[in-house]
């Protein structure tokens, strides 16, 4: 009997396979990959992959994406991703979409090394692939939908700090608590922060310290900085982990309103510090617009209107967006303050 079932299995699989052959021929136009221009304006299926499904940041991105899909009317949007954030699960999803033959996949890679091969398989199957929110190996995608340039982030951070400290005439020492000294994103931002600082001659950068993505270390580093530099007036805590750590240190030292801290984070993570007055400004890009722009970029990529050499992209309510080499630029940061932070829930 055991052998019987062993025999049945291949038969069953063969059955499945043979029936497919017929289905393949019957639905030939659907299966054959059409060139991008043939898809112009036609209904397409787009898969949008977040690093992790179910976290407020990405949920808010997906809201913008749904808005754009509805507006366009000819994009069927699949928003799915690993609830665990496990990159291996993301690979399974990309492979599945490849097998399904969706038209375009937009990936926010949690681990570019793991996702890269699957993205390349999708491209080899004729599917358009782009990245959004975070980038991967350029060979595995055609475009990156880039939320903000390092220059914009660097400038926004310095401008917000100066504003918090009293405007153009702000004076005092400032320090940076970064992620790790080798973190590439942060180092790019620091480069542009340093070139923006001379705009405010009263501000002096005295130290750049790592927090190694450890909130406790960010906390103790901030304490040490306040002790070492009595004239310290401002701290840039430029990772989502170091920001709350630094804010907590300032709060516990009773220096709210005397030492200012700013950085990048989602509104929900920093809401309590902002409402208590420890933090005046939280910088981030507009997450809804990021999802919205990604859908428009995906549609244009399939239509062939977004291609190598393009310099602008029409993106619905966002107007014309710049395309710089293989980056579609969202641009612009938003600053959350006591006055508006309650309106954002992510």
């Amino acid at each position: 009997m055991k052998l019987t079932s062993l025999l049945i299995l291949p038969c069953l699989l063969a059955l499945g396979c043979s029936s497919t052959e017929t289905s393949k021929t019957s639905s030939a136009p659907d299966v054959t990959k059409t060139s991008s221009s043939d898809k112009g304006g036609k209904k397409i299926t787009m898969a949008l992959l977040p690093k992790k499904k179910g976290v407020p940041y990405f949920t808010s991105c997906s809201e913008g994406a749904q808005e754009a899909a509805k507006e366009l009317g000819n994009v069927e949007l699949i928003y799915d991703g690993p609830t665990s954030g496990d990159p291996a699960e993301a690979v399974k999803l990309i492979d599945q979409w490849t097998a399904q033959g969706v038209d375009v996949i937009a990936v926010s890679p949690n681990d570019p090394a793991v996702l890269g091969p699957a993205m390349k398989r999708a491209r080899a199957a004729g599917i358009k692939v782009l990245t959004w929110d975070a980038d991967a190996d350029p060979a595995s995608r055609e475009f990156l939908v880039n939320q903000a340039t390092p220059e914009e982030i660097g400038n926004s951070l310095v401008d917000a700090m100066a504003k918090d400290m009293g405007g153009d005439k702000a004076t005092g020492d400032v320090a940076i608590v970064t992620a790790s000294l080798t973190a590439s994103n942060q180092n790019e931002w620091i480069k542009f922060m340093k070139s923006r600082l001379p705009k405010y001659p009263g501000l002096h950068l005295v130290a750049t310290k790592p927090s190694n993505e450890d909130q406790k270390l960010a906390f103790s580093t901030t304490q040490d900085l306040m002790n070492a530099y009595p004239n310290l007036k401002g701290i840039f805590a430029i990772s989502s982990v170091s920001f709350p750590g630094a804010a907590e240190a300032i709060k516990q030292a009773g220096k709210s309103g005397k030492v200012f801290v700013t950085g990048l984070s989602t509104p929900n993570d920093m809401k309590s510090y902002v409402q208590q007055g420890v933090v005046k400004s939280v910088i981030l890009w507009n997450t809804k617009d990021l999802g919205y722009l990604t859908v428009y970029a995906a549609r244009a990529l399939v239509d062939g209107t977004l291609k190598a050499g393009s310099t602008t992209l029409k993106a619905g309510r966002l107007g014309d967006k710049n395309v710089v080499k293989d980056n579609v630029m969202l641009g612009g940061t938003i600053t959350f303050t006591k006055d508006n932070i309650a309106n954002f829930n992510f």
Partner: protein
Amino acid sequence: MSWRREWTLTVLLAVLMAGAFGLEPRFVSVKAQTLLFTHLWELAVVAVPMLLIIITGGIDLSVGSTIALSAISLGLMFERGVSLLIAVPGAIVIAALLGATNGWFVARLKVHPLLVTLATMAAFRGIAEGISLARPISGYPDGFLQVAQGPLPAIIFGGLAITTHIVLTRTVFGRWIVAIGTEETVSRFSGVPVARVKLVLYAVSGFACGLAAMILVARNNTAKADIGMGMELDAITAVVLGGASIQGGKGSIPGLVLGLILIHETREFVSWHWKQNELNLIVIGSLLLVTVLLERIPTRRKLGEIAQH
């Protein structure tokens, strides 16, 4: 007895594939199935020795962690410039030794396998995280990465499954495995080398974890301490779904193969059709319940008939 589980699984699989063909014809295509099957092999490889261990009445909860530690060993060796020709067999040997450690505790010290492997499940994962500092190790050569895309993982599983089927049904060693699970004390008195058999099986389980680790690292291009998380539950579920008794003494390779395919196809189809990754979490449990319930209905009628006579 065991024939009926295999028929139940075959019927379920046929119903699933027919339903899939009606709803999503493309799901049943060779191209789609080939691509989707690449994600099954590591689980399948680990499930084979798990079947043997469960037949002896034991269990191995440490498989996921053994995979992680073996993968990290490979990554660390590779990072230090050791050739993959040495690092790959080395990492597989390390995994086999980890399995043998489980076996030594179970067979020689007679600690309950649930306790031993629960402890090593935590310990192996902890060591993997510690020695790798929880960072990913990537950058393997293309030749190694291609391995996971080709037919090799399927061949490894096929070889392992066929060998195990022959061992289980046609050899003395196979009869010992079943005997230990049926009546351990009796088999010990009848001259079955119980400790030796168990030691070998846990070592084989470790060895299979080493193979699975290589498949996973090659496919993900990354060794990371969190890989293989939860694999023990999937493997145990496949074994039990395939008709093996968790009390030991019963189980077959054809049942396991059908169980694996049914789990795999159901998961992929649910995720394909409903496009909600989180539904995957519900699939396995429901499948197990449905299978058991389907078999309950005729059994109870039969019991009723017996009672009437």
